[in-house]
């Protein structure tokens, strides 16, 4: 579909792309935050409010949930 190169049309496109990008990010960021937060240390979570990429990589959280006995589905993975 050929589109005209008028100013109005290009402005429309710019705004459209910007809004869509914003929407896409808003839909996905909470998940990114939660997943990134799961791979970082408690200290980093307390310092930085919103972790998007962990600078201190750590598997503490996973170790913790695999150890706790009350997570019946996860404890199936325990060997001890």
């Amino acid at each position, binding site marked *: 579909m050929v589109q005209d190169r*008028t100013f109005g*049309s290009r402005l429309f496109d710019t705004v459209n*792309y910007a809004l869509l990008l914003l*929407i*896409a990010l808003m*839909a*996905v960021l909470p998940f990114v*935050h939660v997943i990134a937060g799961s791979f970082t240390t408690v200290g980093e979570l*307390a310092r930085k409010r919103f972790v998007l990429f962990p600078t201190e990589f750590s598997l503490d959280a996973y170790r913790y949930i695999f150890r706790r006995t009350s997570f019946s589905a996860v404890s199936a993975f325990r060997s001890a």
Partner: protein
Amino acid sequence: MNDELIRRIVRNRAVYLMILPGFLYFIIFKYVPMWGLVISFQDYRPYEGIFGSEWVGFKHYERLFTDPLFWRIFRNTIMLFGLNLLFYFPLPIILAVMLNEVRLAAFKRFVQTAVYIPHFMSWVIIVSISFVMLTMDGGIVNEGLASLGLEKQNFLLNKNWLRPMYILQVIWREAGWGTIVYLAAIAAIDPQLYEAARMDGAGRFRQIWHITLPSIRSVIVVLLILKIGDVLELGFEHVYLLLNSMNREVGEIFDTFVYTAGLRQGQFSFSTAVGFFKSFVGLLLVIIANWLAKKFGEEGVY
């Protein structure tokens, strides 16, 4: 005439066989259990069973209309439904139109993937993540408010925040997935219409307003009818996860009440009456919406 009918069925037996599982599903799981409604006319006691429980006629239905609790639940349900219709329903349409205007295929695919993801997360995940973000105790929303100098809000316990939270979660989860049907409908529009409009000097907005939207009007109407029929299926899972003793006043809807009063407190007969009422209202709404659609010249759902 019967012979002719039998012959036609036999000739098309493959089609009937294919329909059979779905048909049986509806008979067994939807129609047969309906006779359980009879317990709403009794004072049902599980150990007496259906045939042993005392028959009380419309006693529970009378309670329905006089119990103020019932009207509060009714109001809550209607409010959530109204919010859903008003704020959620237009969004997939708008999003689909916006996506349709994108030339760059890679960008379009990226956005679509991103907005489809929340749909695949269960309500438990959506609500849990929302709680993590909204908590007073280090949640990023409150931290953000604090750093801007605004007061921290107790989103999770303050009953005034229940409805906004509900609708934002619905939008987050479903708006993306909902675009699929509309995108398919938009893709079917003849590009010559757009060319003709451009010849006549129409800008982007006008093209959308005069071509895109009217062309998908039928699809919008059908989905609207379906949604209205679904209204009272507000998503038990979702609302139940949001409820706590502080916001129950605005959050309790029919489904959660039937669960709480019926299964937890054992008021089987009353909650059956409530459930029946809800289904009945839903049926009425579908019939009305379908009739309205036909009045507007669109095809109804049946």
